[in-house]
């Protein structure tokens, strides 16, 4: 299925950014409306990806491939499958909401802000759609700059520190990944004679067992920082707290998913043997992350920081699900990537709304909001419950599947991880209680309830929470074949690898004398 739809989708926001650059000078209104129009257009364009998605195949769809640097085997290749389709949609949706949410909260340098938002969208969409390692890397790093500017220019007090920390952490991982990409390119080229960065070709190649381990670590480090997996998470609270609301929404909702997506797309299929080797360690780390994130979230006094740490915990669940390496876990992981985008995106939006009114995020500054702003409180409640994983809302489905998978993979870890669900209820509900119930303080007594614009921002997410909670089949149907295919692919490779090493072992036992003599001859020949 050949189509240029994805290419238009990826670059439409960029075109919009250029338009704003030209037309928005000194006219904030124009910048806002243009950005909104473009992002809605991008979202509308992404809907057909969902409706016309062929859920019976694990192959790439909507593929568009043109040579880029032919001499090096670099091509511009984009396409999506069941793993990425939902992520593309959540990206386009959250971008619209993020732009809408900054309508009144960003009044400073609106044009540049909107340009950064749209460029960021292009970068993220590129990451999720790239089917060429080089192209993927270009988007992966290019997207850093707009995010860096968003945090650094429109962020809070310690924004510069947070912005630089964000960039350096991410780059530390991704530069090593670049070395691994190059190494992979030469290994594949040396073994097969075709030098290419084409992921679909590389997927068919079994990477040499000896080099898998280091290559896996180089890729995984980069993704683990992005996720962020414990203990690489320290950039996240800083970035979240300092970023403007829309930045946090995109950061939590989409950017973190680039890490888990990268694991699914690159680490597992390219290095199945190393995956098997490190699965235990990674599962332990993700469970530590689940519990640690939850415990630290519990003691936060700043709402935004609390939500940031809850992300560490939730992303731990996703990684756990992926490395459970069974269908439930994988499906749950993919669904939870979307769920976390919805719930945490919504939480950051809600926090942003209250911050805009009170200019504080300290939990102790609030109380009794239910009496003053009932609609807001209701929305906040639903969002909180969705984040906790209440049955009937989206979070439950994902977490349940993940835990189902985790229990099959490792009982102990499954049990410990489940405590994360309990702890989530503790820190979220406790926070909710302190903010929304209780006595109304002087400062909070005159707050305005949700405006029409704010309803528009939050409503789509509420609908999705209920939709996924009640009828997740709409979404899981589309991810099912791809995730099953991925697991099969990894397991067959692992089997083949194990078989090969068994064969090697037997061979070396029986013909040990013969082999040593040939080797020494070979070395002399060298």
């Amino acid at each position, binding site marked *: 299925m050949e189509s240029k739809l994805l290419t238009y989708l990826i670059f439409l926001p960029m075109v919009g950014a250029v338009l704003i650059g030209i037309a928005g000078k000194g006219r904030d209104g124009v910048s806002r409306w243009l950005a909104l129009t473009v992002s809605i257009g991008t979202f509308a364009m992404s809907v057909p990806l969902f409706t016309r998605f062929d859920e019976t195949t694990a192959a790439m769809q909507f593929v568009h491939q043109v040579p880029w640097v032919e001499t*090096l085997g670099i091509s511009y290749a984009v396409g999506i499958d069941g793993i990425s389709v939902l992520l593309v949609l959540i990206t386009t949706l959250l971008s619209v909401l993020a732009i809408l949410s900054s309508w009144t909260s960003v009044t400073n340098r609106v044009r540049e802000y909107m340009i950064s938002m749209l460029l960021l969208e292009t970068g993220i969409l590129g990451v999720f759609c790239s089917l060429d390692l080089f192209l993927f890397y270009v988007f992966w*790093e290019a997207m850093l700059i707009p995010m860096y500017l968003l945090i650094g*220019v429109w962020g809070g007090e310690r924004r*510069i520190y947070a912005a*630089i920390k964000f960039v*350096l952490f991410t*780059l*530390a991982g991704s530069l090593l990944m*670049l070395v691994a990409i190059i190494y992979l390119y*030469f290994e594949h080229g040396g073994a097969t004679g075709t030098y290419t960065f084409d992921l679909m070709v590389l997927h068919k190649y079994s990477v040499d067992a000896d080099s898998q381990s280091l290559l896996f670590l180089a890729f995984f480090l980069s993704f683990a920082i992005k996720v962020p997996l414990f203990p690489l998470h320290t950039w996240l609270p800083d970035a979240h707290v300092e970023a403007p609301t829309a930045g946090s929404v995109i950061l939590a909702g989409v950017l973190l998913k680039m890490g888990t997506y990268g694991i699914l797309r690159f680490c597992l299929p390219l290095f199945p043997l190393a995956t098997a080797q490190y699965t235990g360690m990674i599962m332990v780390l993700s469970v530590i992350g689940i519990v640690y994130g939850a415990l630290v979230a519990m003691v936060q006094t700043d709402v935004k920081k609390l939500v940031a740490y809850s992300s560490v915990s939730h992303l731990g669940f996703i990684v756990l699900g992926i490395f459970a390496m069974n269908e439930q876990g994988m499906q749950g992981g993919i669904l939870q990537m979307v769920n976390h985008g919805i719930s945490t995106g919504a939480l950051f939006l809600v926090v942003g709304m209250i911050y805009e009114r009170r200019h504080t995020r300290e939990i102790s500054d609030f109380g009794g909001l239910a009496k003053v702003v009932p609609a807001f409180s209701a929305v906040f409640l639903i969002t909180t419950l969705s984040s906790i994983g209440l049955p009937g809302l989206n979070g439950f489905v994902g977490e349940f599947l993940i835990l189902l998978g985790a229990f099959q993979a490792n009982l102990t870890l499954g049990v410990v991880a489940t405590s994360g669900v309990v702890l989530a209820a503790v820190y979220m509900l406790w926070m909710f209680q302190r903010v929304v119930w209780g006595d109304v303080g002087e400062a909070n007594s005159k707050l305005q309830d949700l405006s029409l614009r704010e309803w528009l921002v939050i409503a789509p997410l509420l609908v999705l929470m209920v939709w996924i909670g009640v009828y997740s089949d709409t979404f899981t149907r589309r991810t099912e074949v791809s995730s099953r295919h991925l697991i099969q692919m990894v397991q067959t490779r692992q089997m083949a690898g194990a078989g090969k090493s068994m064969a090697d072992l037997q061979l070396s036992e029986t013909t040990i004398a013969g082999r040593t003599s040939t080797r020494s001859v070979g070395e002399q020949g060298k």
Partner: protein
Amino acid sequence: MFEIDWNILLPSLVVAGLVLVVLCVDIIRPDNKGGVSGYLSLLGVGVAIWVSLSLWGRSPTHGLGGMLFLDNYALFFNLIILAGTGLTIFVSTGFLEREEGGRSEYYLLILAATLGMMLMAAGADLIVIFLGIELMSIALYILVGFFRRRTDSNEGSMKYLLLGAFATGFLLYGIALVYGSTGTTNLREIELAVAQGRVYTHPMLLGGVALLIVGFAFKVSAVPFHMWAPDVYQGAPTAITGFMSAGPKAAAFAAFFRVMVASLGDLSGDWSGAIWMLAALTMTVGNLGALSQRNIKRMLAYSSVAHAGYVLVALVAANERGIAGGVFYLLAYAFMNIGAFAVIVALGRKGDENLEISGYAGVGFRHPGIGLAMTLFMVSLAGLPPTAGFFGKFQIFSAAVEAGYIWLTVIGVLNSLVSVYFYLGVVVSMYMRQPVGQAHAVSMTPFARVALLTASLGTLYIGLAPTSLLQMARQTVSALL
């Protein structure tokens, strides 16, 4: 009697002729009223570029008694050098008038240096390379001290002269030892002598090679021979600093690569370890040194040391991809670095060059075009996609991995990580810090605008559509391997 193949001389001849013409103009109009010298120089540089391009792709020859090569390698470097010169002249108009009053010998010296560089790239004999280096260096000594009334300019010039003289001594001694052991200074004959084992004593040859490496390392400002760079870069007129970091560095590398790979390639087992150390040290010390700089010219001086380190990685690899990558990188570097210096020139004011990085606070929003361009150059220097710097580094690191130097590559990418901090520091200052004091109007001459635009577009173009230039870089390799 032998036939002279004039094509071999043609590119250098154009520039040599240009030097003479500008010299005559200088006699007639020493104050350079109306900037005639500048226009003439630009025209001549354009012609030289055209000549170099029209000679592209011929089968490699050498002539004039084996003194000069005519091959794609030399022509490609001609393009880098001439592009650097052209951009510098564009940047210099307006800058000179603002600072000291324009004088035509400025252009004369730039062109003389350019001629020297072209001879370095085309030299087929150590003596020619040496002459090229001297021609270039002497012109540069004067240019660095061109602002006669400024102490830092004089200081830089003096330092450069003294250390440059040292480097020359090393280089000459090296040439002498190589001559002593092989009986020739001709590059092709050295190659033959080494290949056939016709050397007088091996240790003497190796001593010569070591001294050659030291001499060249001085010229490309590799650690530990980089001490001159920060002071000279800071003291020199800003446009000249940009000039020095592009053309002369490229030319020094042109000769360095040709001597090491083409003539002494058979000895690579002996020298590649040394270059490995040199590369690792140069990258690391350059980047760490740049971290603490507050003056942007000094920061870029250390950065230029670090970038020499990246190119040295290509020399360590010394394979087809490596040479093409190194050549490609030097082209990319010329665009992004001169671009950065064009911005520095534009943000300076008469009597206040505004060189503190903290002085750039607010520039990004006050002058969106300049801010955007500077961001692009910084991102490219840091080696982030989708820019020329990224693609160049990608090529070099690929070559190193291909040749099996994984750890050197890892050192290289970790260095890139360090460098991101100080390059983005400029962006932080431009966009994220509150400006202090009044906004200053920025006046750029149309020429300076053209330079800035060309450098920006070049940086983007090389990053996004590198195919054709990469192809050209690949075609230079056959001259060496």
